[in-house]
């Protein structure tokens, strides 16, 4: 029961930015350049959901609230959802589906390349996000594939940093959050390996 409340509220809350943006578009509240606002905001929401997804495991460990695990997939899919809109706006309204223009843009502009690659890498994660795929792939392979999210998040944040003209304050916030999230994993990884190493050596000495 609690889990389903958590899931439903996450679903609704996560959809809210899209609803508000759509409402803003209809009511002419997105400023003088609504397409730019939409592109920028959906990109930023994609990035936020990536970071929120990455925050679930640390939060779970810190709070021992294991129900959090049930919303992680949904949050990841929302990151993909916002990234898709972001990408479609770029391809459709900025480049007007002109493939050669898109390719030359990717080649000429490193920030587009980084963003594009990060988006492409998100696709297999979204496709294999359901339970059936986990069963089919086996957890080892699945986990290995889904560790791509670390690189995708780095790519997303770097993409944001590179595109900013001069004032990098906002992307720097994202970079700090990402460093904390990745740092937590590094820390627990190191602790785990040290702990296991210690345990094994203890074990060895006992056996002697």
């Amino acid at each position, binding site marked *: 029961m609690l889990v389903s409340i958590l899931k439903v509220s996450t679903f609704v809350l996560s959809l809210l930015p899209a609803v508000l943006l759509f409402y803003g578009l209809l009511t002419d509240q997105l400023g*003088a350049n609504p397409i730019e606002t939409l592109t920028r905001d959906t990109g930023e929401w994609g990035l936020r959901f990536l970071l929120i997804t990455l925050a679930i495991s640390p939060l779970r460990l810190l709070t021992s609230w294991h129900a959090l695990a049930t919303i992680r997939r949904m949050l990841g899919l929302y990151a993909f959802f916002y990234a898709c809109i972001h990408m479609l706006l770029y391809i459709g309204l900025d480049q007007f589906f002109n493939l050669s*223009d898109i390719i030359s843009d990717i080649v000429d502009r*490193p*920030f587009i390349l980084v963003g594009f690659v990060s988006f492409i890498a998100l696709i297999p994660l979204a496709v294999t996000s359901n339970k059936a795929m986990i069963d089919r792939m086996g957890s080892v392979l699945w986990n290995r594939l889904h560790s791509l999210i670390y690189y995708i998040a780095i790519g997303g944040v770097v993409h944001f940093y590179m595109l900013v*003209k*001069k004032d990098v304050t906002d992307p720097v916030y994202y970079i700090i959050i990402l460093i904390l999230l990745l740092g937590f994993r590094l820390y627990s990884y190191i602790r785990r390996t040290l702990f296991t190493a210690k345990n094994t050596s203890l074990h060895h000495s006992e056996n002697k």
Partner: protein
Amino acid sequence: MLIKKNKYSELPENQVTDESLYLNRRQFINKSAMIAAVTALPKLAFANNPIPEPDYKELSQSPFSTDEELTPFDDITSYNNFYEFGTDKSDPAKYATNFPDKSESWPIIIDGECDKPGEYTYDDLIKPFTLEERIYRLRCVEGWSMVIPWVGFSLADLLKQAQPSSKAKFVEFTTLYNPQQMPGQQRQVLQWPYVEGLRIDEAMNPLSLLAVGLYGKELLGQNGAPIRLVTPWKYGFKSIKSIVQIRFVEKMPVSSWMRAGPSEYGFYSNVNPNVSHPRWSQTRERRIGDLLKRETHMFNGYQEQVAHLYTGMDLKRNF
């Protein structure tokens, strides 16, 4: 509230501005079925302010004016790059509401390599000149554009008055430095004060305009009040705002953006679809109000007036 019918439409030069067109601008971006689908969606609210009462009347229309559809007043005054008031495009409209301080006179210094330097107040400076309306395209380096009905006078008229000497090869412009009035200057996003420059022949070109108003109104703080440069064949950042100093110099000035990113922003910064910026391809632009982008033209479509200034120059190197 009493809603006055706008006197602005009575002015002859504003026959280009059909008010109903302007008020329903979003309906005029129908360029494809896709756009039509979007614009056909019902508007739940529509908050466009009427065009304000004009401060300048009976302005003559410049032959340089374009007859393209004007960008709405609301958009011109709410979507601004003016880092002195913050780096977000909505910041200038938010933080420049009381700028400039009307209780103080605005000083402008004209000095450097000229025979008649001088220190003026804004009011004295503009007094000798007949103001006219000039409808120019404005192309931002970020890939968007507007059509703005400026009010102003030719920069050359002012410069000639100062009688530049033969050493005056360039003109350097400086924006006010006042972190109290311009909160964006409290952070070193760019090197303050903002500096821009033109080659003397560029500055003397009849297209170069000193603007003091737009849409028949005095300039608002966010648009560079009380006086700003407008060079429509160059990217928008060249059109320096809220000018306090104009100096004739022998050496090429280093502009704030050149200092911030020498590989990205050159001295000339002419609108050029063939030279791409590391961040933005410059081949196309989104006219504010449009859904899809349009082609960008060489010198923003002002080749006839300015192309001769650059004959024999490699514009890829002199970007």
